[in-house]
């Protein structure tokens, strides 16, 4: 079996369900580069099930938009069925790398103060390797996949 090395780890944060049980969320601090070249830190949920990095629709001002639905309309599968999302391109900094990638805005993401969206696979995941230990709430990252 190959041996893998990781340089970083992603911290998990505790959330509570309606019945009081805990869920542990791997949250990544991602910097979004705005059109005015400022860097905004956004906590995103690391989500291997998300094909594209996705932000809550109400964050559209960070992309320099006048409304959330100016971009390319795409259909996206969610837990609640297929919904419209709007796609843009932006630069993010994550795990020490600057990456230009597609960003979708979606209205149906839940409002949660500890994350503003999902860190998804398209373009971003190609840059890294990941190791995941569910039982110990550990997610490891290498910049050299």
């Amino acid at each position: 079996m190959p041996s893998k090395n990781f340089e970083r780890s992603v911290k998990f944060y505790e959330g509570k369900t309606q019945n009081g049980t805990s869920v542990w969320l791997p949250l990544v601090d991602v910097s979004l580069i705005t059109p005015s070249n400022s860097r905004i830190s956004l906590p995103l949920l690391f989500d291997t099930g998300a094909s594209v990095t996705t932000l809550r629709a109400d964050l559209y001002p960070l992309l320099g938009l006048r409304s959330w639905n100016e971009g390319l309309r795409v259909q996206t599968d969610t837990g609640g069925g297929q919904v419209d999302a709007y796609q843009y391109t932006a630069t993010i900094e994550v795990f020490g790398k600057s990456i230009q990638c597609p960003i979708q805005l979606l209205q149906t993401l839940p409002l949660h103060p500890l994350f503003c969206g999902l860190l998804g696979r398209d373009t971003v995941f190609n840059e890294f390797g990941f190791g995941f230990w569910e039982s110990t709430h550990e997610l490891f990252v290498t910049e050299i996949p």
Partner: protein
Amino acid sequence: MKLSATTFEKIGDFKSVIESMSIEAQSPTELLSALDRIGIESYVTEEGHLMIRYWQIGAEDFVPPEQASIIRTSRHLTDQGDNMDWLSKNLQTIREEYGGKWVAVYNERIVASSSTLPDLMNQIEEYDRPLITLIPAEPVIWTFTYAL
């Protein structure tokens, strides 16, 4: 860009401070800690150069690349986690005061809040990498399973 005489003097003073600290420090880690202590934000590039934010005064070949990777990992994680940790630990208190508002967190404190995101952005232009989030007015409960 033309720099004023005052700015040149400040850069000169700043370079002197860095040079002095570089000579006195026993190790790269010690120098980085010293910079942290006096509030100078710095980072180490993948190539191992020491960079100072804002002024971009660099010390080339500060450490070999293999040591740079170790330093960058430990320092970056600390930087990344601070605001999120603070937000997570203080969420209940923050929600009581800022429920329904956008907030910007910087250096483990809320530096701006607003009912609209554009207004918040206008308030935080001076900060590099403030964490932005919307604080719900209601208690936060995890209610969904998501896959896109």
